[in-house]
């Protein structure tokens, strides 16, 4: 076994003497201190920075649980606020819709209106119809007009207790008695669907003025649709020399593909007084 190596005696004595010298001679002590600090200061600064970083890290780790909980809370708040914003936007749209409908009510003799939603589109190609979420339990009957604030959508053709089917005015089997909303013209005719999403106004006497851009409205003849509801805008007028009648291509005022907030006109009061029934309300209290 080797003996343990120790500092030589002469070195220990030398270092001690140097220390005494540094203590006793003020100038030498100052010089030595300055030189030592010059070397140590950067190391000291680096160590302090590291120590502070570690300290902050430890502090953060200790608070991590609280921060996570706080973060969850903020996220929940954000989600809740976003949902509220969406709800408010929907309410705003519904409000606008009802305001326009009230405006429409002043112009057309609408009875009680039942708010309905479209739940399905017609699966059979060639037939233009939709299913709505209200039926005979809510007072819907066959041949009642279905409208939106923009104008005529169609009429009910099949009614079940909780759902109904609406044939759109764009279907070729639909026909609406119409006139042009122009004090000078008042041309009347019959509007039917063409099957491609547009309408054709037919049987308009050639003597009646009919121009592109005119607005076609319901005339009230026929009994299904009340007078004064907007049907669409005339796109093009076709006249043939040999024919007694002229016809016009009409763009429907309602976008049938995106129609969502619709109303069934339950009873035509003819007095312009009625009520707007929300989803879930029933026109017949005895039910």
């Amino acid at each position: 076994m080797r003996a343990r190596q120790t500092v030589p005696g002469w070195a220990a004595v030398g270092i001690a003497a140097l220390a005494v010298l540094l203590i006793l001679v003020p100038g030498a002590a100052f010089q030595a201190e300055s030189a030592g600090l010059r070397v140590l200061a950067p190391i000291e600064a680096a160590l302090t920075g590291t120590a502070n970083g570690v300290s902050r890290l430890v502090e953060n780790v200790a608070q991590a649980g609280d921060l996570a909980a706080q973060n969850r809370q903020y996220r929940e708040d954000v989600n809740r606020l976003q949902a509220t914003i969406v709800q408010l936007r929907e309410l705003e749209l519904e409000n606008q819709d009802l305001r326009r409908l009230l405006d429409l009510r002043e112009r057309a003799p609408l009875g009680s209106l039942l708010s309905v939603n479209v739940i399905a589109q017609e699966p059979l190609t060639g037939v233009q119809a939709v299913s709505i979420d209200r039926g005979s339990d809510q007072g819907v009957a066959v041949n009642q007009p279905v409208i939106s604030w923009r104008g005529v959508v169609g009429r009910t053709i099949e009614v079940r207790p909780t759902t109904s089917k609406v044939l759109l005015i764009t279907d070729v089997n639909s026909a609406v008695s119409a006139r042009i909303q122009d004090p000078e013209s008042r041309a009347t005719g019959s509007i039917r669907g063409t099957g491609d999403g547009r309408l054709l106004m037919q049987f308009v006497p050639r003597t009646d003025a009919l121009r592109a851009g005119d607005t076609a409205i319901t005339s009230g003849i026929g009994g299904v649709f009340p007078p004064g509801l907007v049907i669409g805008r005339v796109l093009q007028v076709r006249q043939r020399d040999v024919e007694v009648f002229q016809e016009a291509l009409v763009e429907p005022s309602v976008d049938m593909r995106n129609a969502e907030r619709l109303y069934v006109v339950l009873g035509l009061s003819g007095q312009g007084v009625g009520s707007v029934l929300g989803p879930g309300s029933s026109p017949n209290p005895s039910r």
Partner: protein
Amino acid sequence: MTGTVLWVMPFLIAAVLLESVVLPGVSGARFRVDAALVIVIGWATIRGWEEGLLAGLIAGLTADFLSAAPFGLQMVRLGTVGVLAGVLMPRLARSSSVFPIAAAVAGSLVAFFVGVLGLQAAGWAVSWEQTLLREVIPSALLAGACMAVVFPLIRALVRRTLTPSEDAVP
């Protein structure tokens, strides 16, 4: 044999609901894929006319609940296509994988014309020329493309549902 058609029933009902309730809101296009028809043709191609007829009737009944057209027309339409595909397709499908795609395109056209005849028989007016060009032909091509994806899935479903004693799947 016809018991296996029960496996495809949920898919048929889901397809009808999808094309009638969900897709119209998602896609603004005038034409849309008749997903139930694609499944009926695919199933009939593999399982024959009996199960094709049953699949067509199940899908048709579901569609009839949602349709404003006379009740039963969808059952007739999809049932007819199921029988035709079940009679004509099993042998052809074994020879080439293109046939099921062609069958989906042809089946869409047949289904449309059966629908038009049914509507006219019930006294409905149909502007079939415009509908054919603008809606049916694009929808039929889309159905063909859809069949290329759906047919292997139907075949896998049939394989999974077959008992060892039943016929080999093409």
